């Protein structure tokens, strides 16, 4: 009997072969298959984001208290919070925030509605696509804030010019998102609608528009952020009230604690808008798997 024979026998009984077995023995040893899968799949981890915020704030506060971070360079979070508290107490917060929110809501809503309408037209009519798409491509990359002086001449120094800046800023990304969304609607669904004799308007309303909704909503996310950026920029150029005006004033007085409070308000606005759009997405797109 040869060595390889014995090892074959051993493996047949399910026993691993001995240490000094023949080359064949290594092949018969039982080993678990190495795991190579997993990963590449984001899972929801709660509270970590909050924790990161908290840790940074605590370190920052500690640095300021101990003098590692000079107050001239960067005020402590507690000071910024104190400035914020004063804003609340004097009632200035609502005046600034109210003015800003009004501009934001009016401008963004108008920009979104017009953008969706024009985007649908571009998606549905070849003539509109041929005529308007180059125009959109030409106007989209222009920083709208550069046009503010023109808007002031056209729409007045008051609310008009600021709303117009936000409107134009949110209009173009919405047009592009909507027309792209319409292009991506499953044509077999449209053919189904036609085969059942649905009217053109029914097909647009019940098939095209819901089908383009995911793209429209992700466009809304982008245009909302652009709207906030433009809001502040427009308010910095000429406004009595508004978060942007407040930040500008604080900056020119070197009241860095107030400046930070203002910036924090902007952050919070961005977070809240993002959260609201997330809720809208979850509700409007609950049919998605």
């Amino acid at each position: 009997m040869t060595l390889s024979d014995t090892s074959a026998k051993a493996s047949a009984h399910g026993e691993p072969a001995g240490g000094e077995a023949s080359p064949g023995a290594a092949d018969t040893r039982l080993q678990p298959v190495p795991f190579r899968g997993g990963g590449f799949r984001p899972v929801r981890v709660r509270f970590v984001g909050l924790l990161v915020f908290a840790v940074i704030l605590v370190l920052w506060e500690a640095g300021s208290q101990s003098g590692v971070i000079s107050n001239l360079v960067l005020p402590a979070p507690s000071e910024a919070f104190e400035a914020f508290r004063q804003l609340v107490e004097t009632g200035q917060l609502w005046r600034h925030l109210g003015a800003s929110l009004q501009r934001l809501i009016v401008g963004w809503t108008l920009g979104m509605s017009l953008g969706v309408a024009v985007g649908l037209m571009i998606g549905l009519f070849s003539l509109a696509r041929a005529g308007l798409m180059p125009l959109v491509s030409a106007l989209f990359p222009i920083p709208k804030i550069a046009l503010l002086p023109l808007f002031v001449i056209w729409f007045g120094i008051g609310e008009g010019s600021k709303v117009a800046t936000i409107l134009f800023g949110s209009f173009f990304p919405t047009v592009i998102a909507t027309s792209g969304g319409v292009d991506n609607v499953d044509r077999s669904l449209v053919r189904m609608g036609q085969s059942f004799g649905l009217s053109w308007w029914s097909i647009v309303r019940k098939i095209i528009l819901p089908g383009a909704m995911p793209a429209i909503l992700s466009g809304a996310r982008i245009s909302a952020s652009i709207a906030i950026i433009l809001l502040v920029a427009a308010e910095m150029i000429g406004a009595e009230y508004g978060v942007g005006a407040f930040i500008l004033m604080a900056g020119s007085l070197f009241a860095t604690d107030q400046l930070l409070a203002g910036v924090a308000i902007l952050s919070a606005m961005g977070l809240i808008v993002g959260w609201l759009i997330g809720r809208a997405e979850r509700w409007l797109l609950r049919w998605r798997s």
Partner: protein
Amino acid sequence: MDLLLRGVSHMYGDTQVLRDIDLAVGEGEIVCIIGPSGCGKSTLLRFIGGLERPDAGEVLLAGAPPAGSLNPLTYVFQDFALLPWRTVEGNVSLVLEDHGLSAAERRGIIDDVLARTSLSDFKTALPRQLSGGMKQRVAIARALSVRPAVMLMDEPLSALDSQTRELLMDDLVGLWQRERFTACYVTHNLAEAVRLGHKIVVLSRRPGRIREIVEIDRDLADRQQADAKLDAIQRDLWQLLRDEARAADRELADDTV
């Protein structure tokens, strides 16, 4: 209502896809159209339903559609074509909404049609929650809701696995026995054709022409069991199609030489 095709021919660019198709579909009859892939059978179905126009020839309807028919020529698609954002009842409702029915009438039709296809329990489910077989049942319910004169079925079972396909074939046989619907049924599956067709139209390779029309006079209900005659028909059909594929092979070789 009968359906009549006369001399239907069509070109896509320079290639002729269909040539001189003459065909009659009688009331209460299931006509299966089979042929090798690319022979224009789906195109033919689109002509019949008025979704596309043939270059030559005509598609005619004889007689009035049955009373209360909302959409005489109604498709069942291979990919189901359900709106993912509408529930089962919403998907059926979609095709009733443009016909000026009252909400109560619509609800009545939906309940009736879902009961007939045993889908009542799934009324509020979304398409993503349904298996492929259930999705196609919903699509069939949707087609029935508009009381079609002719159902145009474009490979309705091709996207399903073979077990589900068997189940749905049983459903269709049962449905036909109850409702005697008229259908044009395009498929590349010979077993389906032999099981469901009263008439089987065999198309040739491109340009698609009618090679042969096989009539099977056995009642649909009696086709369940293994049957030597049906098996023989299926074998003959396969022979025809295999020859077509071979012929196409040779054609291609001739072309390049």
